């Protein structure tokens, strides 16, 4: 079954969508697509069939999101914890992924028409090599598209993502690109796998579980969390509308909290810069206490230097990540 579903909404759905669009809409929605196995059990199907139905539901949900002007969707396809499941199930899921990514590559013109950019987030080293190559092809093929974005979290856990970001920053320090004192919240956010996306506005988890299960823990600290008891393969347009309505109810308070957090974080950055600039002045000064003017100049200079360092580091990181995909792709082509 295809990744892209064509088709308009029916009249009632269209009216409801228009009513919802009168209010603030989330620009980035994250889904934890839970409940495939329970659905399969309920309908007396094979588990594989449950996962297939889950994928079909994903394609349908993307269509609804397109009609609701939700430009970016992130989904939790496979967790690193899921590797602990039975070998049969894991192999089945990998095979499903292979089929789906191959189908994706076949539909390239369709993806270009809709401007869909696919990104895969996670510790891809843990996957079989042929799957990694398929993923690299899909990601590089849709890189230039910018109308809507689909982030698939495969072999992903949030703790591994955060640890990886710390490792990248440590690599930057090792290479002499940045200093340890440059480490800050925005820099860590820029080193995550999801650095090209804004933080999700809305996180939806289906099947009634009320946990985050190691999904986007850093990015969803100020997102609206909606837990719905419907199983993922039974998800409907009205469930999505319900979730969006809940987002709209919480919108004002969450915006306020985000603003507060941002102000607080900017203040902390300023304090840190001031401390570093003062230290710098002291070590390079001639023992005399510096004037206010001198201190302000030093602060501005230090901030400018720090920002330049960080830009260079982020460029280097981007090059490193791109070359990872390019190497995979060229290995796949030549193989």
């Amino acid at each position, binding site marked *: 079954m295809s990744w892209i579903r064509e088709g308009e909404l029916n009249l009632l759905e269209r009216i409801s969508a228009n*009513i919802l669009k009168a209010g603030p809409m989330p620009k980035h929605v994250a889904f934890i697509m839970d409940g495939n196995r329970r659905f399969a059990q309920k309908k007396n199907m094979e588990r594989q069939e449950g996962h297939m139905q889950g994928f079909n539901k994903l394609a349908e949900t993307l269509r609804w999101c397109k009609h609701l002007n939700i430009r970016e969707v992130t989904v939790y396809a496979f967790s690193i914890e899921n590797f602990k499941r039975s070998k049969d199930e894991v192999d089945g899921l990998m095979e499903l992924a292979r089929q789906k990514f191959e189908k994706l590559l076949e539909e390239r013109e369709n993806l270009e028409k809709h401007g869909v950019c696919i990104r895969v987030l996670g510790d891809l080293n843990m996957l079989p090599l042929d799957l990694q190559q398929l993923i690299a092809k899909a990601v590089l093929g849709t890189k230039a598209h910018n109308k809507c974005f689909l982030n698939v979290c495969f072999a992903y856990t949030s703790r591994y993502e955060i640890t990886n970001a710390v490792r990248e*920053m440590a690599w930057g320090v090792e290479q002499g690109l940045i200093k340890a004192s440059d480490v800050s919240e925005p820099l860590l956010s820029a080193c995550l796998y999801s650095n090209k996306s804004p933080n999700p506005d809305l996180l939806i988890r289906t099947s009634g579980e009320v946990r*985050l299960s*190691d999904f986007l823990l850093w990015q969803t*600290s*100020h997102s609206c969390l909606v837990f719905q008891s419907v199983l993922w393969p039974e998800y409907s347009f009205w469930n999505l509308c319900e979730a969006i309505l809940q987002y709209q109810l*919480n919108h004002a308070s*969450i915006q306020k909290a985000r603003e507060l957090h941002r102000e607080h974080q900017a203040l902390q950055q300023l304090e840190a810069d001031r401390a570093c600039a003062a230290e710098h002045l002291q070590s390079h000064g001639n023992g005399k206490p510096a004037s206010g003017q001198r201190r302000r100049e030093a602060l501005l200079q230090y901030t400018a230097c720090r920002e330049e360092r960080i830009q260079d580091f982020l460029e280097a990181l981007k090059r490193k990540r791109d070359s990872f995909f390019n190497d995979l792709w060229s290995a796949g082509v030549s193989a």
Partner: protein
Amino acid sequence: MALLYGLLWRLLLLLVHINRALVVWLRVRLRGWKRRVWERAMAGLLLPVALAGFPDHQKTTNQNPDANTSPGTVKRLACRRSRLLSDGRSLEKLPVHIGLLVTEEEPSYTDIANLVVWCMAVGISYVSVYDNHGMFRKNNSRLLEEIVRQQQDLLGGDGSKCNVEFLSNGADKHHVISCRPTVKVLSPEDGKQSIVQAARQLCRSVENKEKGSKDISVSMLDVLLRESRNVPDPELVVKFGPVDSTLGFLPWHIRLTEFMDLLVTLALGQVLSLLICAISLTSKYLADDFHANTPVFQSFLNYILLFLVYTTTLAVRQGDGNLLAILKQRWWKYMILGLIDIEANYLVLKAYQYTTLSSVQVSLCV
């Protein structure tokens, strides 16, 4: 056209707000008031209380001690303490670490202190209190005073047994050495900022060539974020307030945490008491001044509200909690209980015509 949609949207939001407010009001009112009536009726009919089937979703949270019991004799306190303990023991599973996430603008210190003391009394070892403005952290001492005072009030002068250890910040003050139960006051700095600090520490050690960047692992970061004490991750976070978000609560630690939204604000307790008081007063007023002999009519309005809110909510729910499914399984229980409820309501409202307000309230509360 856009204007029309805008208006419809505003109307939709208003309806949802009203629905929510009604659900909360009815749920809390039912639990508090009718439970006592029902329990007595059950006992009267010699039916086991278990049949009453209160859908107690909050199995793993605290049971409120009687709000109306006046702080009094040692015997009463001892009864309450043992009841709290037995309540805790009767639960199948208690979280080792519970988080109280307050998303209100102006939280009530007394209510939080109450919650903390109940958690400790029921047997939960670690309690974390968080609000996203950092107000509890700023007013640390005030919260500590309230907790100590509530401990005295609710559990008697047992302060020496239930030593509260106050972990305010990783680096500084520990008030008492004993380990359980422990209260931790958190603010947004303990969330992302502490992860950044751990990252900075690791980068500094890489800068000083003490380790390589490839040596950094999840467990290394985990150890740094857990500080020196082996406090487990919060297993359950109970959220108070209208906002459906974690608002920066310990992002690293909430990997497998379950979130429970009680849909009440802490201040609602005060508002509800006020409402219940108003209802009693108006019932009495109606009976005295207007000689209105309408106990059935008064409870009829109540039932209309219940029907509008709960039946519609259940009707749209899918799956096992659906109205049809519930009716199929347990219709006869609801018939019996409905009959008893109507009669009990009738009797209480009738009572306002024969006696004073205070005696009705006292007989309800006993």
